[in-house]
């Protein structure tokens, strides 16, 4: 398993789009342009989101964690996107109820059932109203990177790989 890519290049601010399809495509397109995922990742993400929605209402800002199969991924990464306006996503495990999502963590995993610790830490953030609110208000990508590196313990993770 390769290292997880997480830097300013996968952090997107003010992502525009009126529908979840548009914002998902914008976020996924950036990953394709960076060579982190294959072109097929875009349609795979859209298809998976329509079949198995990933919107999550939290105590604060609603989030979504779109992801898809490992074969579309070149290099594992988590892309973080703050939307210009909240966009409705269907709630995970529901078939029609939606939640206005403003923060998206697009997961590009290169191995199934991996990254448990990282995912657990990510879910912890969803239960942390203050951090969520800080993330959507932040206008500096490096600050988002530093905050999430700390919350997700990414620096320690990278250190362990060496």
């Amino acid at each position, binding site marked *: 398993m390769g290292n997880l890519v997480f830097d300013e290049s996968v952090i997107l601010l003010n992502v525009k789009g009126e529908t979840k399809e548009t914002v998902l495509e914008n976020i996924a397109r950036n990953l394709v342009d960076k060579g982190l995922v294959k072109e097929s990742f875009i349609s795979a993400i859209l298809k998976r989101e329509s079949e198995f929605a990933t919107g999550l209402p939290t105590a604060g800002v609603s989030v979504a*964690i779109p992801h898809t199969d490992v074969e579309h991924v070149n290099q594992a990464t988590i892309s973080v996107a703050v939307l210009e306006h909240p966009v409705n996503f269907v709630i995970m*495990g529901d078939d029609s109820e939606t939640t206005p999502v403003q923060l998206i963590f697009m997961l590009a995993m290169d191995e199934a059932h991996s990254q448990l610790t990282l995912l657990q830490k990510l879910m912890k953030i969803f239960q942390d109203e203050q951090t969520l609110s800080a993330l959507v208000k932040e206008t500096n990508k490096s600050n988002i990177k530093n905050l999430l590196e700390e919350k997700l313990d990414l620096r320690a993770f990278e250190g362990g790989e060496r």
Partner: protein
Amino acid sequence: MAKKTVLVACGAGIATSTVVNSAIEEMAKEHNIDVNLIQIKIAEVGSYVDSADLLVTTAMTKTEYPFPVINARNFLTGIGVEDTKKQILEALKNSN
């Protein structure tokens, strides 16, 4: 008590089921319940219809199964997670 087979499923079998799987594993250990956890994609549940005792999933399913189905979204958001845990424990204690 016989060992229970619990299916943990999400859409992709990649992300959310990994987290839920680990939460149930911990919970079972804590309550001394012997479980056989199987992490799968929701589309694969059909192959386990005869062997499973419980399905815990973050994905939506409209199919009727001969075992209880519990929605596990709360494990991700933390909202109401204690109720979900109780539900799972009850299901594990009741099924034979």
